[in-house]
């Protein structure tokens, strides 16, 4: 797919008079931030990295230099080892002798003013930043390989959640439980993970794990987000230590129905804002409209990096039109005054017939007897 993306980007460059495209990344791999270097190369470097692309070829520059051998196994591009990007870029720009308008950049905004200033000085002109164009042209949908990776990441997340059900018990701290789940994620082959895990008898939201000791009656919230070979997936789950009443089950069922409404709305041609409204409509009809807005709720899901994070947030202000091959997490997590915050969320891929979950298990609250 990297080659397919490069083909699309080269076509865009041809149409727009761009002769050299420079994609940059600072080395911080977040599931909420795009990585233009990974998008074009399929490789995730430890440090700063850069793809240089022109009609006749392409090159991936990685730092630190000792990581180049590993990276070369993960990309079709020629790989150059470097300790710093700027000297390499300076040499390339001097050799290319292009007018600044014919050089496009992506990822430059991640760098500091000094780096940006150095690039502008090399060009003698403000750099032409084309991030939005890059993701629109080459990053809106996932490749079949990336969708498979997302499926594998979702599979890892589900196994990690099973581990959580095996381990969670009163007396252990949130961070001890989180450590067990994270180990399962890593043992099964994830290259990274992001995880929120917290508990209370009445949660207002989920947060990073802390030293709180789990107790009988706790509602444990989990957001598990493994990355498999650079593609993240995310699941959101709710576990009860002990038993709960009918009201709790009713509210969770309402949340699951809201999820279904969102899935039904997520069809090719619909907008992300349509999905957001579909989720909220059902909850509003049941009297929870007040809790469907900030500060209670911000979004109902989001894209999953690290290449491109399109289609972006499941939010009211996102009019991105859904296309086949888009991947995102749909999570109608909701605060109910009667029960506290409850979580349910699945990663989905948009197919011909609409949103298909990448997970196997149907959303359900779990109980651990104690």
């Amino acid at each position: 797919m990297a080659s397919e993306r490069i083909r699309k980007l080269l076509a865009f460059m041809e149409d727009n008079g761009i002769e050299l495209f420079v994609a940059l990344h600072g080395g911080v791999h977040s599931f909420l931030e795009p990585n233009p270097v990974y998008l074009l190369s399929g490789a995730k470097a430890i440090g700063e990295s850069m793809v240089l692309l022109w009609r006749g070829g392409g090159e991936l520059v990685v730092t630190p230099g000792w990581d180049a051998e590993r990276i070369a196994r993960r990309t079709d591009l020629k790989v150059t080892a470097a300790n710093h990007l700027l000297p390499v870029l300076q040499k390339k720009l001097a050799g290319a002798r292009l007018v600044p308008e014919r050089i496009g950049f992506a990822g430059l905004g991640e760098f500091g003013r000094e780096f940006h200033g150095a690039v502008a000085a090399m060009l003698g002109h403000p750099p032409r930043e084309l991030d939005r164009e890059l993701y629109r042209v080459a990053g809106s949908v996932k490749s079949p390989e990336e969708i498979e990776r997302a499926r594998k990441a979702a599979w890892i997340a589900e196994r990690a959640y099973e581990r959580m059900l095996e381990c969670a018990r009163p007396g252990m701290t949130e961070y001890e439980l989180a450590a067990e789940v994270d180990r399962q994620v890593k043992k099964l082959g994830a290259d990274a993970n992001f995880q929120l895990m917290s508990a209370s008898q009445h949660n207002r939201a989920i947060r990073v794990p802390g030293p709180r000791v789990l107790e009988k009656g706790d509602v444990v919230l989990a957001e598990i987000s493994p990355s498999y070979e650079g593609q993240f997936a995310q699941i959101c789950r709710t576990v009860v230590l002990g038993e709960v009443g009918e009201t709790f089950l009713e509210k969770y069922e309402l949340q699951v129905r809201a999820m279904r409404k969102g899935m039904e709305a997520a069809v090719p041609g619909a907008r992300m804002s349509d999905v957001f409204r579909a989720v909220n409509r059902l909850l509003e009809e049941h009297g929870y409209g007040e809790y469907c807005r900030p500060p209670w709720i911000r979004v109902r899901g989001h894209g999953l990096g690290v290449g491109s994070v399109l289609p972006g947030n499941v939010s009211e202000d996102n009019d991105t039109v859904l296309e086949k091959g888009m991947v995102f997490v749909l999570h109608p997590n909701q605060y109910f005054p009667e029960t506290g915050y409850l979580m349910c969320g699945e990663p989905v891929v948009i197919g011909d017939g609409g949103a298909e979950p990448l997970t196997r298990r149907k959303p359900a609250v779990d109980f651990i007897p104690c």
Partner: protein
Amino acid sequence: MNPVVLYGCAAWDQARLPRDEFEERIRLLRERMAAAGLYGLILYGDSCRYAKLCYVTNYIPKLGWAVAWIPSSGDPVLLAGVLGTRELAEVRMMTWLEDVRMAAAADLGVKLGELAAAPAPGESSGDVRVSVGLCGSESMKRSLLESVLSGFPGGVTEADGLMDGLMRRKRPRELAVIRRACAILSSAMASLKGEYKRGGGALDAAAEAERTARALGAHDVRVMFSLDGGRTMQPYENESAASVRPEPFAVYLAVEYLGYWAEGMLTIGGENRAVNRRAAELLRRLSEDLRPGTKIGELVGEIEKAAEPFRMHPVLEGSWGCGIGLGLGETPALNPQSGRRAESGDIYTLRVGLSDVERNEHVLVSRMIRVGDGGNETLWEGRP
């Protein structure tokens, strides 16, 4: 090393780092601000480079960024670049500062400008202000820095040096936290060795080490390992490393606890090789000879000569170690170009990596020490 967003145990540990610890740090910082003629100080930090921000606030952003406003008198303010106001509750759990506010990149400069313009206690609004300092600008995204600068038409003073001296000598409570981080590192390495010696592959051993560190309260863990006898190092990639049992097995492990780092490199196996023996000898010399007053560049130059005919391992990137604390790469760096001297109280991670190119044998070992007038203290040492 393969940084992502942070998700380990996060809390303000008031037993280990109580409020008075931070009040004292602020008092010392304000003395330096006054000497530098600064009315206020802006401290920037993000999930990767948080040292100065955390030193004063205890806060480490799990993703995104935060800025602390430290006026010469009056209450400091933490401006957190969180996604929504709901997350402010989480921020408040990690800091002793009472005034915590949400900020966006676009209005950060305006908010800071307003804070700087507000009269301090006992001051009239007409008082003339002197300059404002900024720490961490080199780490800030351009758009964020430009937003900050827009709030100060008269400019700001680069003030990173103001805190470097303050932070170099660790305070007693900092040392206690670093010792705890080293203990977590020791436990994690023991788990790794146990898993490996029980027959586990490289991936299982690395994952077990990380689990142990996180289960003991580590906030962040960085792992790298070698699948080719120490020639190259890699982060987690996929499940293929599960079936590989490298011999020797070289690992790098760093744990962050309450903001403070401990790191270690270890090579399991190959102890009788000449390259391993030389590495052990160089590590011992570094540990013993890095004394108060030692010229770092001269000592490292001697170590490099003593390493011959073996080559310095490329993962060392030309440095035999550095200061360590709230950052993994604090100053001074241990390289032959250094013109600095070691000081009593310095804490270093000492890294020795050698390659016997002819035999394709490689070794990575390390130690953490605290330099002292009466001799150096070993804080962490890897034993295969």
